[in-house]
């Protein structure tokens, strides 16, 4: 069972470009080399849909033993790991703080390897938080599998479906669109989609509400479209 660490950093002023670059050149290769953490996604929150300015990162860990080891070696002010400490302290040139959540992949949710093998990619992503009737998370995730099939037929593919760890009322999913235009087109068509409306009715006893905000990947995100080369920075 893969475990995911989802971090949202609050950016200080115009520091997003600098922070994403510091991640790319510093923490991402260091975390992969020293801890075996695998970056699944990195990019910006799209401010027109959510809090701004923010960046988000999603890491994949093998299992709970791996997660516990990562926690044990996480930054604290008295951590005895000079390279990590130096990077962490320097990151506050760009960011003010963070909020994070631990996600447990649903048994049918694809891993990073599976996503890469099946060619899942895009620039534009939906991050959906589901407030579930307490105790019904497993049942809701089963139902979400059906929704993923419906959405895939409409150009929106699933990156992952998760239980939010140590809660009894929260699930999470990440979706990918090819680009912002197709993300908008999906939203435009949604109100008239009878199958989606039927699905929504089918989860009425499981789901209290959902909220989605959008993210835009950076060009060094593992799920960035192959062949879309650019030197542009996301600011």
């Amino acid at each position: 069972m893969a475990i995911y660490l989802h971090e949202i950093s609050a950016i200080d002023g115009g520091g997003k470009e600098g922070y994403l670059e510091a991640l790319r050149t510093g923490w991402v290769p260091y975390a992969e080399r020293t801890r075996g953490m695998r970056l699944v996604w990195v990019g910006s929150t799209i401010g027109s849909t959510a809090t701004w300015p923010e960046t988000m990162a999603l890491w994949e860990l093998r299992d709970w033993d791996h997660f516990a080891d990562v926690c044990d070696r996480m930054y604290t002010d008295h951590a005895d790991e000079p390279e990590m400490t130096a990077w962490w302290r320097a990151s506050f040139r760009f960011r003010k703080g963070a909020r994070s959540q631990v996600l447990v992949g649903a048994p049918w949710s694809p891993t990073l390897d599976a996503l890469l093998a099946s060619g899942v990619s895009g620039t534009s992503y939906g991050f959906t938080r589901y407030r579930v009737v307490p105790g019904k998370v497993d049942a809701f995730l089963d139902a979400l599998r059906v929704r993923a099939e419906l959405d895939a037929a409409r150009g929106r593919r699933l990156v992952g479906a998760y239980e939010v760890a140590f809660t009894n009322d929260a699930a999470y999913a990440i979706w990918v669109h090819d680009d912002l235009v197709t993300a908008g087109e999906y939203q435009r068509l949604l109100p008239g989609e009878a199958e989606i409306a039927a699905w929504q009715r089918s989860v009425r006893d499981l789901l209290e509400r959902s909220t989605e905000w959008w993210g835009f990947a950076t060009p060094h995100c593992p799920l960035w479209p192959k062949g879309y080369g650019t030197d542009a920075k996301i600011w």
Partner: protein
Amino acid sequence: MAIYLHELVNVVPTRADDYLDGIGEHHGTQRQQRSEAANSMLGLWTVLEASGTWPLGVNLWQNGTWQRQAQALQSQFEPRAQNPELKKWWLANLGLRSGGFDRILESTPYSLDVAGLRASGVGGELFLHQIVRTRAGDVGDFLDAFGADGVAAVEGEGAQLVGAYRVCNHDHEAIVILAFRTPRDFARFSGAWHGGSAGSALRRWRTREDAWVRGKDTLLMKPRWFLSSPWHP
């Protein structure tokens, strides 16, 4: 039941330890002058950037009685009882924290106090801190059931109970803190909570608590000081 002051403190990035040491020194020094330092500090923790808001410090002080808790509040607010040393510390350390949110807690009968925790050898490298939300008025039933069934279930999978508390003034909140001696113990507990066999005691408890629990906010923490500090011998 014993009364505790629980604080979530928005520490300034990279200054969490400075803040925790600073408040620990101030608190312990003040209490030592009244011979009250022993058993007055349950824990000072730094939150990991894994769950919840970060950076964040968590303080848990054992005040024991409502009378002692009232005295602590008087030392800040009551014009004729203000403690000038507290004011000096408070104003001198604004560079270490930007704000916070505090709660007054009442212990459950089955939660050990500082002396009891120390005598029982409770402690660890990682701590799980949960604010548990119930329907209004259901907190007592949840805490009773946790004491009857939940504690044994979590301790059977590698956790140690630090304490389970009713949040005063909030009719829908409890706080539960668990300690894990090693990261491996935390991994064992987490795996059992999320993936253990359906018939295990922990899974049975997880299903049972859904009768009361309407949501949880979780923090993972490392102790800066737990049960004692250089200023709380």
